[in-house]
């Protein structure tokens, strides 16, 4: 079952009245959508509110989603519209200097804008999380680090990674899981001590 099919499964569950399935979609896409919205809404607090609103709008519109496009494309479109409406309500013009489309949002990288997402309250926590993940990744054995990097950063499938690393697909699956779990082990204490557990 491909990634898009997993989304479709979750969408169909939501359409049958399963709210928990929508929670899983929110967890999966919240940061991608948050980054996208922060490109329109510069104020970090407002960006978070708009992100929440976009998810609620997506939930309300879920009955009309027929799977003709990928869920994330549809979600990002709602995110962009919500952000633009927010700007209009606040008498601000949406950015027009850089045309931006929902289809492009996955490859969106703009560090200078992303930096503005952090609020003074969460900036320290954000840095710590990033540091723990990066340090944990560097401490992983080479085969685990490569497998996780090829999956998360390069976006390769297990079969492609198996071909690159010259090992069975089952081994790839195991390596990626072990890598994730090793990083997660280091992250959990930090996240549990977080004041508002907003990570």
């Amino acid at each position, binding site marked *: *079952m*491909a990634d898009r*099919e997993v989304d479709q499964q979750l969408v169909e569950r*939501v359409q049958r009245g399963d709210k928990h399935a929508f*929670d899983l979609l929110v967890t999966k896409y919240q940061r991608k959508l948050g980054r996208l919205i922060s490109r329109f809404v510069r104020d970090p607090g407002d960006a978070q509110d708009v992100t929440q609103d976009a998810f609620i709008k997506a939930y309300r519109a879920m009955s009309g989603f027929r799977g003709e496009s990928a869920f994330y494309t549809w979600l990002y479109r709602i995110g962009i519209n919500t952000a633009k409406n927010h700007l209009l309500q606040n008498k601000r013009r949406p950015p027009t200097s850089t045309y931006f489309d929902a289809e492009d949002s996955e490859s969106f990288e703009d560090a200078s804008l992303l930096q503005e997402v952090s609020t003074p309250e969460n900036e320290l926590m954000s840095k710590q999380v990033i540091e723990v993940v990066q340090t944990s990744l560097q401490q992983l054995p080479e085969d685990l680090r490569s497998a996780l990097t090829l999956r998360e950063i390069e976006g390769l499938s297990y079969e492609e990674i198996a071909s690159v690393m010259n090992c069975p697909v089952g081994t790839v699956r195991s390596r990626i899981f072990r890598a994730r779990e090793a990083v997660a082990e280091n992250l959990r204490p930090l996240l549990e001590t977080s004041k508002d557990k*907003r990570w």
Partner: protein
Amino acid sequence: MMKNKISALMDGELFTDEANHIIEQLKSQSSAQQDWQIYHLIGDVLRQPEVITADVSKVVHERLQFEPLVVAPQRSMTEKARNIALSAAASLMAVVAVSWMAMQATPNKSPQLALQTSPLSRASFVLKPQVNAYLAAHQELSPSSDVQGGSAFIRTTIYSATEDVAP
């Protein structure tokens, strides 16, 4: 084992039945939900290491409690059956069309075989000597191509008076 499958699920690398089973588990087990969340956080940090946005999932979850259930009209079986029937009909039409075109392009074999098995015989009609020049001049212009598969067996004959007087 469960964590292993959550990891594979988020990569889209589980079979449908297994994926559905894990999704069910994710609904009911908070520890599994945390694993799903933290694995996604790791992925997000690796892809965008500059900064990470705060988690809005809990707030969205709380707001969802005030939202009515979404129940989309399910695609009825009749609609699915209609789609399948239309697909099958289109496929059948395509096969028939291709077959028909192939038959049009290929000469009919049966008459050829029949002609091959029968011995060639001399034309029974007799032409007058005056038409020989006409036949010779117009042989290349004769519409032989209209006779599919038969042109190979048609001979142009010329009448000669000398043959008739042979011993």
